[in-house]
């Protein structure tokens, strides 16, 4: 059924369809609508979940971590300052190997209060061990949440689904909401494996010495690498059921292109329009979207850029003292590889500009 809805409501509906059991969240613009809607769904009994009205984002993630450790499916949503406030527990969720799923509406960091689109919030959490997706539409938000549970529960690492403040969070778009039954087939009940269980008492997250600690970190890195395969398989299965296609990256008119615009989230939509305009003027331009930021799809990016003349990375974020973060990552992936284009970057669109 196609319905007109904002990215935020698309997120709320996806959480309902995913059969989430525990939600713990704290309000922040422009995310608040997601959790208001979920709280309404829980109150109406439409969603059979426990909604915990925590006092902070730190506690929101702590409650999600606790609930997830018992094997329950959990959700939270935040943005900007709230995500920063969670930082300690982002590390906790991934290192505890818990499949927590969260949406983060990309919003600028203060001071200078600004609620508009900016990616510095989530990119500052790059090294917390979360898988990160950047969505371009409300439909993609919905679909990515369903897939994220499946992927996270296999890989045993959490997923953060990011999308632009207002451009996606508050803009109504047609969203195809599938049959609940089809979703259940795609995303059945609970995960197995080590959980908190009185019949099999274990200690989780206690003291570890240097050797064991390193082994645990190695395992996380290995899982992140393996996640690429799991993501690709999950996207294929999703397509076979729902007929919508996703991957680690997305390409637009890339096959004959000799110059490439690389962008993320809604900026990719604008870039695609620019591609059409430039092509009318005779240039051979294509666009490449980085959809997954972690794990970073280096292989796909290198394949897409191979043989191109030049590439321009658009970054709605900045690593002060360096440059745009996606540009840095693309340069790192391309470094030492043959047949790569000249890569440069621009920082633009900060604070929704």
């Amino acid at each position, binding site marked *: 059924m196609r319905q007109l809805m904002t990215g935020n409501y698309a997120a709320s509906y996806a959480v309902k369809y995913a059969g989430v059991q525990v939600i*713990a969240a704290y309000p922040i613009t422009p995310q608040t609508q997601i959790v208001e809607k979920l709280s309404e769904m829980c109150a109406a009994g439409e969603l059979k979940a426990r909604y915990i009205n925590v006092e902070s984002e730190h506690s929101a993630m*702590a409650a999600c971590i*606790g609930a997830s450790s018992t094997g329950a499916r959990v959700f939270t949503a935040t943005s900007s300052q709230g995500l920063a406030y969670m930082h300690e527990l982002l590390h906790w969720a991934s290192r505890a190997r818990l499949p927590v799923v969260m949406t983060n509406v990309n919003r600028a960091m203060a001071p200078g209060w600004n609620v508009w689109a900016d990616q510095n919030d989530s990119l500052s959490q790059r090294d917390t061990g979360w898988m990160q997706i950047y969505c371009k539409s409300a439909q993609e938000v919905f679909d990515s949440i369903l897939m994220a549970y499946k992927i996270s529960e296999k890989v045993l690492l959490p997923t953060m689904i990011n999308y632009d403040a207002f451009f996606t969070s508050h803009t109504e778009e047609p969203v195809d909401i599938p049959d609940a039954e089809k979703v259940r087939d795609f995303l059945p009940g609970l995960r197995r494996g080590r959980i908190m269980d009185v019949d099999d008492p274990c*200690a*989780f997250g206690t003291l570890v010495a240097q050797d064991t600690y390193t082994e645990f970190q190695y395992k996380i890195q290995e899982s992140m690498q393996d996640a690429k395969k799991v993501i690709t398989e999950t996207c294929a299965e999703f397509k076979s059921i729902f007929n919508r296609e996703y991957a680690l990256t997305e390409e637009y008119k890339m096959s004959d292109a000799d110059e490439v615009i690389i962008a993320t989230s809604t900026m990719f939509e604008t870039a695609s329009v620019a591609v059409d305009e430039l092509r009318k003027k005779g240039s051979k331009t294509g666009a490449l979207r980085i959809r997954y930021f972690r794990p970073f799809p280096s292989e796909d990016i290198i394949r897409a850029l191979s043989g191109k003349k030049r590439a321009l990375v658009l970054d709605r974020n900045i690593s002060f003292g360096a440059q745009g973060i996606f540009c840095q990552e693309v340069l790192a992936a391309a470094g030492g590889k043959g047949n790569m284009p000249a890569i440069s970057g621009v920082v633009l669109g900060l604070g929704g500009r």
Partner: protein
Amino acid sequence: MKMTIPREELMTKGHTGCQGCGAMLAMRYALKALGKNTMIVIPACCWVVAIGPFPYSALEVPVFASAFACAASTAAGIKAGLEMQGKREINVVAWAGDGGTFDIGLQSLSAAAERNEDIFYFCYDNEAYMNTGRQRSSATPYGAWTMTTPKDSTKNEFKKDIDAIMAAHKIPYMATLSISEPEDFIRKVRKGMGIKGMKFFHILSPCPSGWLSDPSDSVKIARYAVETNIFPLYEVENGEKYIINKKIARKKPVSDYLKLQGRYRYLNESQIKTIQEAADKNWRSLLKKEEFPDT
């Protein structure tokens, strides 16, 4: 006399607590009361270390190590996760030190209390940040030495009244517990098991390394704390009904308690008098609360 303390041990040998650690006894008694159907969250504190190194555990119930500030919210999450899977009868426990309760964890504790989460929150109070090497917390008493309230500058403020703070949340049940009174300890935890909603337990927990006391004196120090009215034993129902569990006919002077502990070695007479007066005043106010619950 028939002993009421269960024989079952859910805390094993091999924990890494120091000799004479009050918190080790406290856990042992708490688990005797709670039984096997229990899960524990432990934030950063001595006790998370005392569990022992991976892959071992000195506890025969599931334990989840949480970040420092969020024992209560993590426990609330565990309870919610269990309830949503139909596992309603499990005792979910947050077990934190005074730092994790009075200071960095107070926000999440207060919120869990306000939501009346159906969990048990135990604070073993050794009156300083012991795991990081004995620094002052807001639970450190007036006049005590710590590494950050050194000689010439011992603590000049009184201990934060966490019990009054918790009572003000009107939680269904709270009690103070002492390792010197195991029967009273276990009885009150058992009473909490019959009550739905937030249960808060405050245990004074002698720490020989931090209190500079003889490890063999720990139980005695805990008993003196009760017998001097430094740490009275009582319960509060719904934040208003106070029940004092032990009224001492001939209470000891606080100096009996203080002089067993090297952390008080810099006290002068006037400071000891201040501590005595504070203990007396606190006791009178407790008696009043018991007698006139509406005031």
